[in-house]
């Protein structure tokens, strides 16, 4: 008889019955900066749900790399009031990533622009996993409409919920206890009481922290969440390519990846770069450049760890935001006051070349840029662990007519 594999008869199995009681929660966070925060949120939710007699567990997406600055990562938590631990594990978590979630938590609102997790390629929409009627819960100071304009249009209605707050950095280096942990748990209880009720959360937080301020912020967060329905007509056509996974017999054998061809010309997008891994979704802020006050010292181009700057024929340095991770190094080394400034990335619609805009209309560009800077300026501190320095904006340097020429 032949040694070839015997056909296996597939049994018709439906997990629909088991699925009925399963609730999934995803927490999107930024590598390093929010790792501890995300773990605390999913773990505390599991404990609180467990106190209600539910089966629950949490895990982190194994293929992520939360030890890389700003890289989008995800934690998951699963809940059921009917299934055993084994059954919940089998139904909800036998895969390395989840394909749907009742609640998608976003701890940094700039992630609404898309996710390029380490080890994946292509850029995924933040609302990819939200199920019909599910909730996208975002910690943000923005109005829902300001965020929806970055979201992919879906084929069904769902909810967006805003928990008013700043990007909280509670990561590998230090834990800034601004109560974002317990506030987020309260917000989950508000948008999805079927996962855990606010009373259970309160009991759990009282017992764990024994801290009146923490308990107080629970109720404040619960009350301040803004929920709004997102109609399927709202959102944008996704501008990025999404991951495509080829079958085993449709890609070359031998684990060899063609390198980025060496190539360099002056001008915007002048350098050859890796089209499959751009890393730009790691940033929360982007450098904006006053080309009119630039002294052409080359330091931004020289110091950029991601080689995002493209020298132009007029001696200026354009920046490719698709590849910029927002590290702030260029703003730090720029010797000209306010020539390169880090600005909230959500203020910008796209990654088009700032140098081209400047060349088209220099004065219009400077005016546009100064408006984008907003009221508060963020500058990452050069000393690890000290957080960010908030600087009140000074009067903008007037546009220099002959600058940059």
């Amino acid at each position: 008889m032949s040694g070839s594999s015997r056909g296996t008869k597939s049994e018709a199995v439906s997990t629909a019955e088991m699925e009925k009681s399963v609730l999934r929660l995803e927490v999107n966070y930024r590598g390093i900066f929010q790792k501890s925060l995300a773990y605390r949120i999913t773990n505390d939710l599991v404990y609180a749900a467990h106190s209600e007699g539910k089966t629950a567990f949490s895990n982190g997406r194994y293929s992520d790399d939360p030890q890389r600055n700003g890289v989008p990562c995800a934690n998951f938590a699963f809940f059921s009031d009917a299934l055993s631990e084994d059954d919940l594990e089998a139904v909800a978590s036998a895969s390395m990533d989840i394909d749907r979630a009742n609640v998608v938590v976003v701890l940094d609102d700039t992630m609404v622009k898309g996710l390029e997790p380490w080890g994946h390629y292509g850029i995924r929409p933040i609302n990819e996993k939200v199920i019909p009627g599910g909730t996208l819960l975002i910690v943000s100071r923005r109005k829902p409409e300001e965020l929806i304009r970055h979201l992919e249009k879906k084929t069904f209605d769902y909810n967006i919920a805003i928990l008013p707050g700043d990007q909280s950095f509670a990561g590998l280096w230090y834990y800034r206890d601004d109560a974002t942990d317990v506030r987020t748990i309260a917000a989950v209880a508000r948008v999805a009481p079927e996962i855990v009720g606010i009373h259970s959360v309160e009991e759990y937080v009282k017992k764990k922290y024994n801290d009146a301020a923490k308990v107080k912020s629970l109720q404040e967060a619960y009350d301040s969440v803004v929920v709004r329905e997102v109609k399927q007509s709202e959102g944008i056509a996704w501008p990025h390519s999404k991951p495509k996974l080829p079958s085993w017999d449709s890609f070359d054998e031998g684990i060899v990846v063609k390198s980025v061809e060496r190539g360099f010309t002056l001008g915007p997008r002048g350098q050859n770069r890796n089209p499959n891994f751009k890393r730009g979704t790691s940033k929360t802020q982007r450098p904006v450049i006053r080309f009119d006050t630039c002294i052409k010292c080359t330091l931004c181009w020289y110091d950029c760890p991601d080689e995002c700057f493209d020298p132009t024929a007029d001696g200026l340095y354009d920046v490719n935001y698709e590849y910029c991770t927002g590290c702030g190094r260029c703003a730090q080394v720029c010797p000209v006051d306010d020539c390169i400034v880090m600005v909230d990335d959500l203020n910008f619609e796209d990654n088009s070349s700032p140098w081209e805009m400047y060349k088209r209309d220099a004065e219009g560009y400077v005016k546009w840029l100064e408006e984008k800077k907003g009221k508060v300026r963020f500058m990452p501190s050069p000393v690890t662990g000290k957080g960010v320095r908030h600087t009140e904006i000074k009067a903008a340097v007037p546009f220099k007519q002959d600058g940059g020429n």
Partner: protein
Amino acid sequence: MTTELVDRKIYEREELATGTDAVAHAVRLADVDVFSAYPIRPYTGVMDRLAKFIADGKFDSEYIIADGEHSQFEIAKHASSVGARAFAGSSGTGWLYATEALAATATDRLPLVALVGNRALDDPGAFGVEHNDAMLVRDLGWLIVWASTAQEALDTTLIAYRVAEDPSVMMPCAVAIDGGYLTHSQHIVKIPTKEAVQKFLPPYNLGTRRMHPDNPVSIAPQINEDWGMEIRRQNWEAARRARGVIYRAYKEYNEVFHSSYANPFFEEFMMEDAEIALIGMGTVTSAAKAAVKLLREKGVKVGYVKLRWFRPFPAEELRESLSEVRAVGVIDRDFAHGGPDDGGVLFNDVRAALYHSSNRPQIVDFIGGLAGREISIEDVARMVRITANHKGEGELVTWIRVREGNGAGMERKGGD
């Protein structure tokens, strides 16, 4: 007056050569670009001979001495990745020390050919043959072939390059030869001409995978769960395709060198109408053949199968070959302590293959020849007797030529 013993168009001369000499000739004739070395008996014989070829101006190759076997095989792997035909070899624990590089060479699909001069694994330190060293890589994507004569070692090394470098295979190949018995004994070997070898063996071509300044590539990136299964599946298919390539390679070798390899995977000796069959690998073949001949003279219907290719394993072909026998005895020059029914590695592979046989013969195992111990004609005759008389119940494994006592001293060990 001397007689012309070889065809001068194909063979340049005959030479009294050890197994390692024979492999060294094959490496020279294959025009290997880079070979890396670290001394260990019995592999050292190849190093010595290749160094002499270079010193004599007969061989132009990069000869790189490493600081240990791990580096040695890393060097060979990297050489292979830039498009250089590479060679390396080791023995026993030296081969094991290179394991990380060996695994990566296979998963990187680089067609390195390596010699394993089989040697017992330490401890205790021993030089003698055991097959466990080469078998270490049996599941990693290496092709593994055993040669049992010096001539076969030379032929097989050339064939190994042909198979490994075939565009549809691209897998590393280990040529295994028994330490001491084959590596160090001298036999008359026909040395092919370079022209004939070039007719058989096309140049190594890595194609677009070749790492070169004109073709910048990254090899072996970190992947995640989205890719691993597909990459393993590719390798699985390549190992299956290798079977067909092995048939073609021997056919081509026979054509160029007028040699007579019939079934490339194994040699059948007196298997016509055999009721009892023994199967083994390596130099035990001489004793096995002699015993079979003597027993045939006495009317015992016995035959012997000398297995060459261990990976890919010729399950289909073995089922065919053993379809008429009623009992099979497997000679394991290896150990697999605590394995299924406490049998050796080869035993359980053969047994697995015969599970799907329409005529499932009785199958028993013989563990013998470990750490270089000899296996005699009488030993093989005993194996035939045990195989023929075994009822298929009770102990399936017999240790051959191990010193047995009266069992005193076993009580306190809790054995039954």
